[in-house]
């Protein structure tokens, strides 16, 4: 069971995430969009959307710092365990609260503003559910384990496991005795990665950073008819 959850499942998630995106990009470039609902409603969106998006970007940075950077590195940089812990908890909570409040506003908007709700597909609803559960579990883990239960150092268990998966030496035992909330958060995140390529979340992968460097005006020749996408091409 441990192996299934912490070795098989992560690789399945990674595989689906990567291949899913490749497949979606080939099959469905036209559907690759944020599907903005700003035209329907702007007031709530202008509050909720930046809150959520900037919040989640900070959360992402936090995860990079917490999961990818080994404890040895921060130690070497002269950062004590307690200091790291407090920085992580405080910044993580701030980012988490930003994200949660943004998401609350956005979900409220999606449910109550008529046109926005009509434009919500079942696919969207599933995505919102998994995303919200993942974020809530993550914030819950941070908050309960660290503040209420006096601290939990995931950098000895979750982080090494996470890196071990990517180093192709998965060590499931590391995750076996991690608090339930952390386990649940990781499982729910894997679910999110599995459905990711098939939801509107794909817009994340085409964040337009190239805009910073490309020339303003794009010229393009009348191109040959694009080869139709599909497996046989």
């Amino acid at each position, binding site marked *: 069971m441990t192996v299934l959850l912490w070795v098989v499942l992560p690789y399945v998630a990674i595989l689906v995430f990567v291949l899913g995106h490749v497949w*979606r990009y080939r*099959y*469905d*470039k*036209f*559907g*690759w*969009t*944020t*599907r*903005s*609902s*700003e*035209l*329907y409603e*702007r007031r709530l*969106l*202008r509050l909720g*959307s*930046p809150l*959520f*998006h*900037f919040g989640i970007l900070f959360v992402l940075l936090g995860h990079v710092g917490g999961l990818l950077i080994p404890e040895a590195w921060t130690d070497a940089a002269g950062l004590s365990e307690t200091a790291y812990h407090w920085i992580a908890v405080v910044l993580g909570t701030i980012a988490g609260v930003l994200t949660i409040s943004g998401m609350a506003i956005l979900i409220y908007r999606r449910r109550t503003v*008529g*046109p926005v709700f*009509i*434009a919500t*597909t079942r*696919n*969207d609803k599933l995505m919102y559910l998994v995303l919200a559960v993942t974020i809530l579990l993550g914030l819950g883990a941070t908050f309960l384990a660290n503040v209420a239960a006096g601290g939990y150092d995931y950098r000895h268990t979750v982080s090494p496991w996470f890196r071990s998966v990517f180093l192709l030496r998965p060590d499931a035992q590391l995750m076996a005795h991690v608090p339930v909330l952390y386990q649940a958060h990781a499982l729910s995140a894997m679910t999110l990665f599995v459905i990711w390529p*098939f*939801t*509107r979340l794909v*817009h994340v992968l*085409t964040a*337009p*950073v*190239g*805009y*910073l460097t*490309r020339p*303003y*005006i*794009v*010229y*393009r*020749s*009348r*191109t*040959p*008819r*694009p*080869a*139709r*996408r*599909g497996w046989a091409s």
Partner: protein
Amino acid sequence: MRVMAQMAMVMNLDKCIGCHTCSVTCKQTWTNRTGVEYVWFNNVETRPGLGYPRTYEDQEKWRGGWRLNKRGRLTLTAGGRVRKLLSIFANPVMPRLEDYYEPWTYDYATLTTAPLQEHPPVARPKSLITGEDTRITWSANWDDDLGGALEHARGDVVLAKVSEQVRFEFEKTFMFYLPRICEHCLNPSCAASCPSGAIYKRTEDGIVLVDQDKCRGWRMCVTGCPYKKIYFNHRTGKAEKCTFCYPRVEVGLPTVCSETCVGRLRYIGLVLYDADKVLEAACTPDDTGLYEAQRKVFLDPHDPGVQRAAEEAGIPHDWIEAAGRSPVYALISTYKVALPLHPEYRTLPMVWYIPPLSPVVDVVRDTGHDAEDTGNLFAALDALRIPIGYLAELFTAGDPEPVEASLRKLAAMRAYMRDINLGREPNERIPQRVGMSGESMYEMYRLLALAKYDERYVIPAAHAEQAQRLEESVTECSLDYEGGPGMGGSGPFGETSGQPVPVAVENFHVLRERQTSDTAAGRLDRGARVNLLNWDGNGRPDGLFPPRGGDDA
């Protein structure tokens, strides 16, 4: 010198009768789908008026186009690249649907399904956005023919630039129509605003298009375009815009709006220009200098040097030859009667307008004077500062001189041609007064009054040897592509996701679906609705008649 060719248009506003045929045929062709119900690639505005979307010309508010920064460099009014990316999660200055209008249809079904009652049943307006009952409060041409002008015309952004007294006078004296399509600018700010780089200018003919596969729906282009001619399809989540009917133009046909124009007021032709001078022209310090600066970017297609440079730049010979016959170049550069719309946005627009003389003529006629006499018309032009001031705000960033020069030429042509038509000796002093020869004035008259189809639309077809490269080739069956017909429909990831289909195929499916589907206005869901605008007279939209049989009770 880097010669490029641009497909451009000139509209003769004197001839526009405001019939909206161009708008309707364009809509039938391009925006008859769900998601773009509110979209008019071509719309006709009454001036003075608010325009569509309302007050779009107020760039203090909508922040479209380019401006010069303190160092005199060209920047996007809505902010540069970093600022765009930081505000990407919620575009701060995007027009709301209310700024366009909430599209609606009528609940026609009640007309036939209502039970017997004392008063005839009423088809209630239903919003196409929410499906609920709605109140119709605005549309794309709500203030048509100055309807409600006392209330609305004061909101006219252009009018606000003219002084208060002038404003009052203006409302009493004159009105004209302004048909608008995408300007297919030489320096398009929509393309510059697009974070994904999905909006591009075609190198062959300068048509500005949105790559539907690359568009990610960030909506910055809607803000970037000062003419508000990029629209967001709220069903597909992609930007859409006027395409200059590229599938038609590629085979030498004029755009649908031009083809169906009742007044025959549109001219289409090529303009050769020097791409290296575009930025310099757009950076002209003075707003009023932009008209001249843009004209200097254009190259004389009769000049052998230009022709040689064009050949070297790879422009086919027949295209260069067509540029020489271009009515657009003649009206812009030879006769200098056409002017650009809002050059102060610094996008170097390529749909130009011949300002309307008829309001001036009307005033002269109403005073009982001879409205075709040059003396009277010139005097009136001098006296009627108001309409000229207004036209100047539209076409030359406020400089009355080019507008006046253009109107004087039109007035002179009127008087000169009257003598000829009445069999009198033509008065050669009339053309001389506006710096033209009698011969060139006659040629201009021919172009403005008599020009036939092939003189108004000089459109060289895209090249035969390039036929395989056409986006929609005419040399093969347009249904003949991998996946074949039947690929239309909604993908699993939201509205109309999945493989893009050629325009012809899409239209084929939309038409067939309209005739056979259970829902009237596209495949959907939003309760019964009948959109007669989308109905082509064939088939039977659901809800138009009560369901057949089994409903006897």
